[in-house]
């Protein structure tokens, strides 16, 4: 995997080191804000990585991926409010619910192509948003406060910021490792082949929909995990996390980092969220700049950050 020392790998290694050592910096400097900021960044990087699996490698442009953040989050929130605080129950439920949703939505959406697929996934995610808004006993539009984080017995204390950060980081690195193995496996070859030329793949004997659906479910489940982490991070879950503009944010993070590259989503998320943070300090109307910036990135930023680094290495 990492065979040569070039711009891409160096940056990736630096970022990994930085992420690992961050709590050291924050404990020395006492800057807790940075730790919580980066916990959020790491969680979204996991979500972005899962989207990259279906978008970058699989060619499935899903505009409804934020739904899984909500499903995972609400699984934790609802169980918590019903008195089930154990993470050993909450998190598997979050994963299972995400997988089921992905299975049903995927089976329906993958009957379509191109822009239809984009809009259908968007619409189904909005449906999840509306359903959550209608759940009056669980806060509806106002959201649901989570009074106690997921309990994992003596194993790990999620209320401890540093421990929680490392858990999230572990999930991120674990997720990326999983994606790496999947992408290079037989399954991953088929999924990438389908992105490259579906007609050819069908002609040599691969049933496209089956493979795409399984990929879709894997990505949804991974994002459901991110949702459970996010709910714990904010001690809160609301329908807003599933609003379609959040799915757009995720797509931008993936594209910004470079689609179809392993480490792209991490870089993309870091840059996007830090930029958002920095701009919002400057002006209340940061979206005014963010919007056209997005336009420019789409129009001129071929291959995202990783693509740029790749071109730099080649000289």
């Amino acid at each position, binding site marked *: 995997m990492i065979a040569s020392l070039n711009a891409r790998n160096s940056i990736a290694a630096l970022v990994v080191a930085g992420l690992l050592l961050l709590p050291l910096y924050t404990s020395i400097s006492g800057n807790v804000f940075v730790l919580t900021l980066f916990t959020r960044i790491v969680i979204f990087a996991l979500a972005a990585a899962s989207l990259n699996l279906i978008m970058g490698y699989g060619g499935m*442009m899903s*505009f409804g991926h934020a739904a899984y953040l909500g499903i995972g989050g609400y699984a934790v929130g609802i169980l918590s409010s019903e008195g089930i605080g154990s993470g050993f129950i909450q998190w598997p439920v979050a994963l299972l619910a995400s997988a089921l949703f992905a299975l049903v939505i995927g089976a*329906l*959406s993958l*009957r*379509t192509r*191109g*822009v*239809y697929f*984009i*809009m*259908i996934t*968007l*619409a*189904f995610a*909005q*449906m999840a948003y*509306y*359903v959550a*808004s*209608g*759940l*009056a*006993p669980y806060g509806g539009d106002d959201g649901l406060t989570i009074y106690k984080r997921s309990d994992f017995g003596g194993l790990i204390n999620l209320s401890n910021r540093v421990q929680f950060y490392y858990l999230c980081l572990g999930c991120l690195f674990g997720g990326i490792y999983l994606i790496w193995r999947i992408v290079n496996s037989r399954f991953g070859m088929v999924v990438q082949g389908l992105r490259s030329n579906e007609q050819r793949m069908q002609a040599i004997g691969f049933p496209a929909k089956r493979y795409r659906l399984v990929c879709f479910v894997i990505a949804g489940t991974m994002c459901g995990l991110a949702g459970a982490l996010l709910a714990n991070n904010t001690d809160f879950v609301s329908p807003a996390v599933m609003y*379609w*503009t959040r799915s*757009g944010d995720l*797509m*931008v993070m993936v*594209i910004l980092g470079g689609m179809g590259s392993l480490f792209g989503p991490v870089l993309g998320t870091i840059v996007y969220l830090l930029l958002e943070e920095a701009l919002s300090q400057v002006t209340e*109307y*940061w*979206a*005014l700049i*963010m*919007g*056209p*910036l*997005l*336009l420019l990135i*789409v*129009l001129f930023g071929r291959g995202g950050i990783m693509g740029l680094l790749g071109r730099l290495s080649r000289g």
Partner: protein
Amino acid sequence: MSWALVFEQLLNGLQYGVMLFLMAAGLTLVFGIMNLVNLAHGSLYMVGAYLAAAATQWTGNYLLGVALGLAGTLVVGMAVEVTALRTLYERDHLDQVLATFGLILFFNELIAIVWGRAPLYSSLPPWLQGHIKLFAGSTYPVYRAAVIVVGLLVAALLWYVVTRTRLGMLIRAGASNREMIGALGINIKLLYTLVFGLGAALAGLAGMMQAPILTVQIGMGENILILAFVIIVIGGIGSIRGAFLAAIFVGLIDTLGRAFLPDLLRKILSSAAASTAAPALSSMLIYLLMAIVLVVRPEGLFPANRR
């Protein structure tokens, strides 16, 4: 459940459907002819509402406000097309989605700068207030009736233009063969700008018509936009007729569902369960409908092209 109530809800559904059609028509025109997915279509809906409300306040005259609002939205639409969207025609749909997504963010903030974040309330002139009498002693708001009438008129006008006029023929031809149209000496760029402007005007009209019923606020276009896309999927891309039928259908289902589903559920489930499930289920109805269409006829119910 009185007949008067049912009839009132039917009319509401029709009114909602007609408004949805105006949104969907613009979207399907632009998508069908220029192959452009425009997420910022919802922003044009919002711009129309804001411009009309502001113009009405400024001039003190409702009709003048509407006219200015329409003209303004047309100009904004064409300006956006010329400056930002021309480069996107050649791009794939994902690029278009993301670029126009950026436009949404931009427009939302722009509106916030000019008008602030608090919602605007648009008022109606006296001659549009009040109720008219229907059968069996029931009444219906004048304004909603006016919306239905105007909407149907615009739909008829649109159908006429697209199917019976030379402009409409150019529009339809432009969809299938750009080079040919260009070779005939017709300015494709101008045609596209006009079509986009038309779509923008339709969206703006929908926005300003809906404004007194809901409120004028930032982000109001986003929910409608998704519904418009659902309608296009159900009706078939590029088909005005499909958009109309699907929009009416969706409008009726959504309105009737929201009105009568809670009562229906209460007969089957307990009251508490029904109160929880009803709003969620009502919201889901349209998406369930779309899911069914996708399973049975993925190309839509009334597709424009027969392959």
